[in-house]
């Protein structure tokens, strides 16, 4: 817009971005510090990364996280896309909107205890499967939100045009609707994968006892409670790197998925 920007505003912007990124960059830098401590730089080292990859519990937690994230993303993407298409092509309803919106805003601790109570009431054994079921709940909400936004940004008369040209409903879905919303579906899937990889509280409550179904965030939580250690810095750097990469890919897939 206007080319002139007051100096105070510029300064605020610089400080704001510093506030956002300095803590993250400090963590990343420390992960390469031989001493692993924030006070002194004792030289570049990959030692902490090496330690990370040789620790069995961490490798197992990473594998569990991957299983949970992949399964819940796959389920949520298929179900959420169908739901978004269904909602957008039918009459709007405020109650339905609220239901679809709710998992995004319910405090995660409340959803966590509700699900734990529910599984306990059913006498269900807890494990990776219960985490997956739980993660699908909020992942659906995010897929629906992204795909619905995408659906509102294309000309719906192309669906009628397809029908007018002789296509069946299934052909219209496959050849016109799906390609048109594909960027939204991909972005929604990437976001739910990221959310699932990072989710802690719900997994913590629904994982059940025992180490078998510990996920990476649960492992990180345990390590942080133990104290500041150089391994966490290394792990944090890897996890953030993966998240940032996924989010940037999602942004490329569906331009404006975060900013509309």
């Amino acid at each position: 817009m206007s080319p002139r920007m007051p100096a105070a505003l510029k300064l605020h912007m610089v400080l704001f971005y510093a506030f956002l990124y300095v803590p993250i960059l400090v963590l990343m830098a420390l992960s390469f510090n031989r001493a692993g401590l924030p006070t002194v730089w004792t030289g570049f080292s990959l030692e902490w990364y090496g330690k990370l990859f040789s620790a069995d519990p961490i490798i197992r937690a990473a594998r569990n996280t991957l299983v949970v994230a992949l399964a819940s993303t796959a389920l949520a993407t298929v179900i959420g896309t169908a739901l978004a298409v269904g909602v957008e092509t039918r009459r709007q309803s405020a109650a339905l909107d609220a239901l679809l919106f709710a998992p995004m805003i319910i405090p995660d601790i409340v959803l966590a205890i509700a699900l734990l109570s529910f599984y306990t009431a059913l006498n269900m054994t807890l494990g990776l499967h219960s985490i997956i079921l739980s993660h699908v709940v909020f992942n659906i909400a995010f897929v629906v939100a992204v795909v619905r936004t995408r659906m509102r940004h294309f000309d719906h008369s192309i669906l009628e045009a397809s029908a007018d040209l002789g296509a069946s409903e299934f052909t219209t879905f496959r050849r016109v609707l799906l390609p048109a919303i594909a960027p939204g579906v991909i972005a929604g899937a990437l976001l739910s994968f990221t959310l699932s990889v990072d989710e802690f509280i719900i997994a913590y409550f629904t994982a059940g006892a025992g180490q078998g179904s510990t996920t990476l965030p649960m492992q990180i939580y345990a390590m942080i409670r133990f104290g500041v250690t150089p391994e966490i810095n290394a792990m944090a750097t890897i996890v953030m790197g993966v998240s940032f990469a996924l989010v940037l890919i999602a942004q490329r897939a569906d331009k404006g998925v975060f900013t509309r």
Partner: protein
Amino acid sequence: MGPGLGWLALLMVVPCGLIFTYAFFERGLYGGIDYIWTFENFTRAADPLYLGIFLRSARIALTATAIAILIAYPAAYAITRAPKHWQTALLILVILPFWSNYLIRTYAWIVMLNREGLINGALEGAGVIDEPLPLLYNSFAVVVGLVYNYTPFVVLAIYSSLSRINRETIEASEDLGASTFTTFRRVILPQTVSGVAAGGVFVFVLSIGNFITPDLLGGGRLQMVGNLIYDQFLSARDWPFGAVLSMFLIAIMMVLLFTQAVLAGRASGERTNS
């Protein structure tokens, strides 16, 4: 649509309904539920001890909300004033940390704030202080953590309403003789109330029910509602009381969201009427 709605009904609506009913029963001797009808859980929640925790949570959440808005508004405004081709990049930079792991973002502030941490180290190195400041494990640290984690969303919300303002209404105000500040107060700010409300409600709701931030940055010494609920389920084993607390949390959230929806509705109503 069917499977999706079924999923949400079974794994969100039913569990929340279950919690709702638990609130009216007595706790079991060894955890769990005894199905004896009671209102005692509600009267217990009014106990000054728990009321105090609720009030403290609200105060901390409110402080975090106010600070987040004060930081976010000028930042969002600056982004709308930046050259057009930079704006998307600037916005992505704002939202990027938001999508990384919450635990790690919170942990980063332990590194920043602890006695041997970066801030104390820098201040001591500069000779400003002799003794490290107690920055961590208090309400200050919790507020910093909440502001850090949720400000990006407020920036987005305010940016989205700022960018929807018709540029010509600002020019019209200047043309009619208003100063930059008057233009901001009388033309820009009123058109962004709904964005500020949306962002503010988001920060408040997520802050008051937060568990991780008070747990890690408050060092367990500073309890908020989220920690209280956590304790009822995982250590005190008093599920009915935990259920009551969750219901209060949901009630606060719904009142705020409703208020915000009304505000947003009124703002858009004004826009279409004029």
